[in-house]
């Protein structure tokens, strides 16, 4: 079947652009014909691994933006709340926690720059406290950052 440029295409185009579906992410790949014609400079042998690397970078950036947005909302919505339960049950924090361990580098970065109750998300995600004695939020944040740096360096 061959489409020609004409007004007959308009209904099809309109039909294509009125979709209500939205997607959290889009997988993109180069046209294989373009690669064969060398229009795109790509090593086919390494295509799979580089594609996975790109996907990882894309996911990380997506999660970082999402994390920042949720965090801002959480801070705003709980700024004056004296009820710790409602701070913990806030939907924005729940969504941060739903990012799982992929959120941990962002959390560490944030509490390193600005110590806050966000440190509790590490208690919940990793199911442990950084200290069994009564320490301040600032000290807890500092200790978690040290723990993170030590853990990462020892894994290298």
């Amino acid at each position: 079947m061959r489409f020609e440029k004409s007004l007959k295409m308009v209904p099809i185009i309109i039909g294509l652009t009125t979709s209500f579906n939205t997607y959290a992410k889009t997988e993109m790949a180069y046209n294989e014909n373009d690669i064969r014609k060398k229009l795109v400079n790509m090593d086919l042998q390494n295509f799979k691994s580089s594609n996975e690397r790109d996907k990882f970078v894309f996911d990380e950036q997506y999660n970082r933006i999402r994390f920042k947005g949720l965090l801002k909302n959480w801070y705003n919505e709980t700024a004056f709340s004296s009820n710790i339960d409602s701070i913990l049950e806030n939907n924005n924090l729940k969504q941060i926690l739903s990012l799982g361990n992929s959120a941990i580098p962002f959390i560490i970065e944030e509490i390193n720059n600005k110590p806050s109750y966000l440190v509790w998300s590490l208690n919940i995600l990793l199911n442990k406290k950084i200290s069994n004695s009564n320490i301040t939020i600032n000290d807890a944040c500092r200790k978690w950052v040290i723990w993170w740096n030590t853990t990462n360096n020892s894994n290298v």
Partner: protein
Amino acid sequence: MSDTDTNRELCITKLPKLAEDTSFSITSPIDYNYNCLAWAANKNNIIWWPHVPHLDGCTWPIDNFSLKFENLIEVYKAIGYVICASWAFEKKYKKIALYKDKEGNFTHAARQLRSGLWTSKLGPAFDISHGNPYSVECEDYGTVGAIMSIVF
């Protein structure tokens, strides 16, 4: 410098009665290290809240972990406070005001200073001073449920 018009407006948005309080001012920057319940007991290095022993920086000073208002009274009784009738300043006594919501759960605590003004820690945000315990009553903090005192 936290006592700015913008920050005051933020506080008044959440605690509307502060708009009528001529003694209202912001007295500290945002500080996550303590909360209102600990601040009422003169502590600025720990968060008092029941049933969160798994969280860093938190503790609860008694064994009863109920959120019921009567349990908060027990917390301050444990450190020497007794129920008293009036929030008015008395030179010999340090006073605290305890707040509760419609469900009978505790929500907030404020402390009277030697100047006669009151001090409140607003969640993780600022410390403020206010002229009477009623000017921080609001939807979140509920209403004053008890006044307690201890000899200075």
